[in-house]
């Protein structure tokens, strides 16, 4: 696993721990010797970290209230329909 393309192709497997010990070692050796791939790997890894911090908090409370009212109405209407059957 000596060329950059092969290294970059398996970065996801590496981060997921889906690689055997020999391949891991070969990848880590390449990163040590190749500053371009090392920089690439660092920024690739940061993507998940940044995405994780995007987590848009919660459903807006107003929407949550409206959602609850809407579904309660629907549930009651469908319940009545079932009852009449």
């Amino acid at each position, binding site marked *: 696993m000596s060329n950059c*393309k092969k290294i970059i192709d398996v970065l*996801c497997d590496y981060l997921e721990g889906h690689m055997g010990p020999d391949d891991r070692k070969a990848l880590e050796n390449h990163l040590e010797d190749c500053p371009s791939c090392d920089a690439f790997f660092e920024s690739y890894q940061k993507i998940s970290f940044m995405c994780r911090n995007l987590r848009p908090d919660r459903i807006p409370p107003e929407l949550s209230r409206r959602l609850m009212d809407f579904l309660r109405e629907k549930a009651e209407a469908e319940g009545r329909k079932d009852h009449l059957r």
Partner: protein
Amino acid sequence: MVRDLQDKQDLLSRLKDKDWEAFKELIENYQDTVYRIAFGMTNDPMDAQDITQEVFLTIYRKIEDFEGRSSLSTWIYRIAVNTSIDLIRKRSTRKEEVSLEEYLPQFSEDERLSSPMVDWSRLPLKVLMNEESMEVIKESIRALSPDIRIAVVLKDIEGLSLREVAEILNLTVPAVKSRIHRGRLILRGWLADYFERLRPRLKDRKGSQ
């Protein structure tokens, strides 16, 4: 653990009986994630609102069909994904597809990395995580194609495991991995482009201190 399982089964049987209180509990537990999936997929608060409503209505109507072959959360997220995809497909004719190939890494003939390497990962956290950078990453996620975007949303934003994402999207784990990998490569390139353009500004700021 046993108690937890019992509670879940109890909730499920109350849901199947169309017990409103049980349904309310379900909405309270899942509304944030369903909304986040819908918002992540459409990036539009109004669409996310419509999808969230539609998802819970579908759950209410179809809960009898839930056979427990997957977990309840996987079943719910799958409905959220499918409802979002349906809406995106209805609209996709209006949106122009942006070519993202330029953001993928470039290699020389002997397969060495040849694109210039902007090492933005070592920038201080306050620059990486400031409002503008976060807006750029959101914009780049919006530009991904829906099939790649949803894999990135579920794995990297929601933090689900590869196996869960595969189950929700009805794909194999390697297929999910390949979508996530492609998505991360594009996002990485997009951000490299942004930080490269930002560099003179960062230097100025440093110089003026």
